[in-house]
């Protein structure tokens, strides 16, 4: 009885971490599909989300909701600035040099965050208290429910945006064939900018909802970013179901590994999975080969 309760607990915390990884993975996928580059600064937007929230809470004594909205807004503005200043001015740059630029940007953002907010670890207050709920003998924090609910909401919003709105469809068209997209009058540069807007907003949101559970500091972006990267690799660079499954799978394995093997292997598990996927199935676990008829 105690064992199964424990297992349930691991699964629960694994899934909630996994949801976060999936959200971060989404950010990678959206930018990758629009531009062909992997934005290694993605993790920093996760950090910015959490840090900005604390900043607005502690220094301006704002209530939680406005602080969160402002934090997302500011992170997104930084995302826009990043695209305008570091990505767009480079004409004819190869994806590899752009990827290196994103690594540079990530170091820069982390450095600025350290100078501005210091090296301390901060905790954001949980959205609705810390009194655990008991479900089937396992404890669940209200924050877990927030994480699941917000993740579901973002996934649904994503789905609706990319499948039903004209701008979302235009972004997919751009990802598939940017030249044909510009021939129908879609402004490709705007779509690239938009992909940075969406992914920095989603990234910062992920950072905000996890901050009450895991605390946040200037350097949380590295690890969370890499975990999100791992999720999106498992999902085959899709901004859909694959990455959600990838994130959840990663979170589950991590949490079970921590529970049954050792907590010190937590991060190793993610990277072993990442390496295995890259060696054995680089197209991702879920991506089926596209059929093509000419």
């Amino acid at each position, binding site marked *: 009885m105690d064992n199964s309760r424990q297992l349930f607990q691991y699964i629960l915390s694994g899934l909630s971490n996994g949801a976060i990884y999936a959200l971060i993975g989404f950010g990678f996928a959206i930018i990758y599909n629009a531009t062909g580059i992997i934005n290694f600064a993605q993790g920093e937007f996760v950090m910015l989300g959490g840090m900005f929230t604390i900043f607005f809470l502690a220094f301006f004594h704002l209530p939680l909701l406005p602080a969160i909205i402002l934090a997302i807004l500011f992170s997104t503005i930084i995302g826009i600035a990043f695209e305008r200043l570091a990505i767009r001015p480079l004409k004819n740059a190869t994806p590899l040099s752009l990827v290196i630029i994103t690594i540079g940007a990530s170091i820069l953002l982390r450095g600025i965050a350290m100078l501005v907010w210091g090296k301390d670890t901060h905790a954001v207050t949980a959205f609705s208290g810390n009194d655990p709920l008991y479900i089937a003998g396992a404890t669940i924090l209200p924050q877990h429910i927030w994480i699941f609910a917000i993740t579901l909401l973002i996934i649904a919003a994503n789905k609706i945006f990319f499948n039903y709105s*004209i701008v979302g*469809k*235009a972004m*997919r*068209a751009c990802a*598939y*064939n940017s*030249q*044909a*997209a*510009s*021939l*129908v*009058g*879609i*402004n490709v540069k705007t779509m690239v900018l938009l992909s940075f807007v969406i992914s920095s907003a989603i990234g910062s949101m992920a950072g905000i909802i996890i901050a009450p559970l895991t605390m946040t500091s200037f350097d949380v972006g590295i690890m969370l970013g890499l975990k999100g990267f791992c999720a999106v690799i498992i999902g085959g660079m899709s901004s859909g179901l694959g990455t959600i499954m990838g994130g959840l799978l990663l979170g589950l394995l991590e949490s079970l590994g921590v529970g049954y093997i050792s907590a010190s292997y937590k991060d190793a598990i993610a990277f072993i999975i990442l390496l295995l996927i890259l060696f054995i199935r680089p197209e991702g676990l879920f991506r089926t080969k*596209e*059929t*093509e*008829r*000419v």
Partner: protein
Amino acid sequence: MLKIKNINTYYGQVYALKNVSLHLKEGEIVTLIGANGAGKTTLLNSLSCIVPVQSGEILFAGESISNLAPSQIVRLGISQVPEGRQVFKPLSVEDNLELGAYQHYSSRAGRAEAKNTASMIYDLFPILHKRRKQLAGTLSGGEQQMLSIGRALMAKPKLLLLDEPSMGLAPMIVQEIFRVIENLSQEKQTTVLLVEQNARAALKMAHRGYVLETGKMILEGTAAELLQNKDVQRAYLGRDKKEIWER
């Protein structure tokens, strides 16, 4: 309506177009013929501003349009049906058409108009209506070509640029597509610039033609003249071949 004056285009160090000039009058069908690598696609892409023009001038309805953004070209009323169809394969037929009218979607009136245009295109190509929920990637080559033309027409172009619409298609389908193009020009007064390897079919339909060879315009004339021209016949129509073999 369209005037190209002495444009030059390079790819790196390589000349793609050398002092090319061309003009189109309203309502005309003009065909551009030439072998592979002659620069036909480059010329269309220069018009659509996908390839930058180094020197020379392109005038559309009296205004210079060289080196605008590709999306502005579409807004002015020039749509291209690209080589190899290039439909958005992961999206449905319906969505492909919708994206063709992308710039009309910012206003409510534009959206309503796009719906009308779409039903007009379904009348033109009934098979697309039957397949409207299918992903474009699952269509046959001919259907993809129809979709690609339909997508370009969604923008309600005044000038339609067609890049080898007959490529890789069965003769029956080519006929159907050519018939539609001819109708467009007659009924909607759409001006058409048609790039073709299938020179005979293109010249039969067109009013005038140009011949492009290794980046230079070498001939210009009415379609009838070009059909009679000995050089054109030998190089692009395949007549005389028998006699050459017998000699």
